[in-house]
């Protein structure tokens, strides 16, 4: 005499495969995220690699410095800033001035004489 069959409970193979697939996708996503994070940090700190020495370079433009242009970093020593022209070193004489309205333009012919 046989006993009646118990109802079968548990996961099917398909359910197990889907669960494993989802978990694998999650783990892969996490691993990729970590790798990308590592790469971003490496890019971020690339300028400090090898304990470097940086030269501070000012912008060679008086007006730009006046309005707050920051200095930049350079691996090479910068050239000296262009010295401003000595005041009164030249006598300037305008010999001809030409104005034009369309398009607006102005042209001047100047004569420089060193003092």
């Amino acid at each position, binding site marked *: 005499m046989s*006993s009646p069959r118990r109802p079968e409970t548990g996961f099917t193979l398909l359910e197990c495969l889907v669960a494993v697939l989802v978990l694998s996708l999650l783990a892969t996503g996490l691993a990729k995220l970590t790798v990308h994070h590592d790469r971003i*940090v490496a890019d971020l700190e690339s300028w400090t690699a090898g304990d470097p020495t940086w030269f501070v370079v000012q912008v060679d433009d008086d007006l730009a410095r006046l309005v707050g242009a920051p200095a930049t970093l350079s691996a090479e020593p910068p050239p000296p800033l262009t010295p401003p022209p000595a005041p009164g070193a030249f006598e300037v004489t305008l010999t001809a001035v030409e104005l034009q309205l369309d398009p607006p333009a102005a042209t001047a012919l100047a004569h420089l004489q060193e003092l």
Partner: protein
Amino acid sequence: MSARRDPLAAGRLAGFTLLELLIGVTVSSLLITISMLAWKPMSRSTLLLRDRALDTTELRLAVESMLQDLGGADTALPTSEPDELHIVREQAVAELAGAWSAGADEGILYALSNGRLERRDVALGTSVTVASGLETFEVERVAGTETHVTLSVGEGLGERQVELVWPR
């Protein structure tokens, strides 16, 4: 005679057997142990990444702040205090900033205090912390023609150091 029915025979009891439970608990324990073993290095690696990013950011903030001031600077020299940088602006820059008085600019002081880099504008009377977590901030005048500023963050393998040279 009793009329009680056998629940097993009726097929209504559908729980786990003791053996199934024991196997389930054993497998779960193994999975949890493996997960914990993998979690420890992962979390350490994540924390290390976070620290590296934070250190580099603080270092960059400190350097960018100094570059901003050095952009319109006339001189950048160490002071009599240890590891303190004194930046004096060009006259036109100081005048525009309202920091020119009595024919001079009192300048800006950078100094490290408890790992925090403080920027103090002496002329304007302002003070701000530009970066934190710095290990060193050294200022040195070399050969009378260059000012070297060394900044570092982090410790051990995570240490980062840069040297800035003001070539005037």
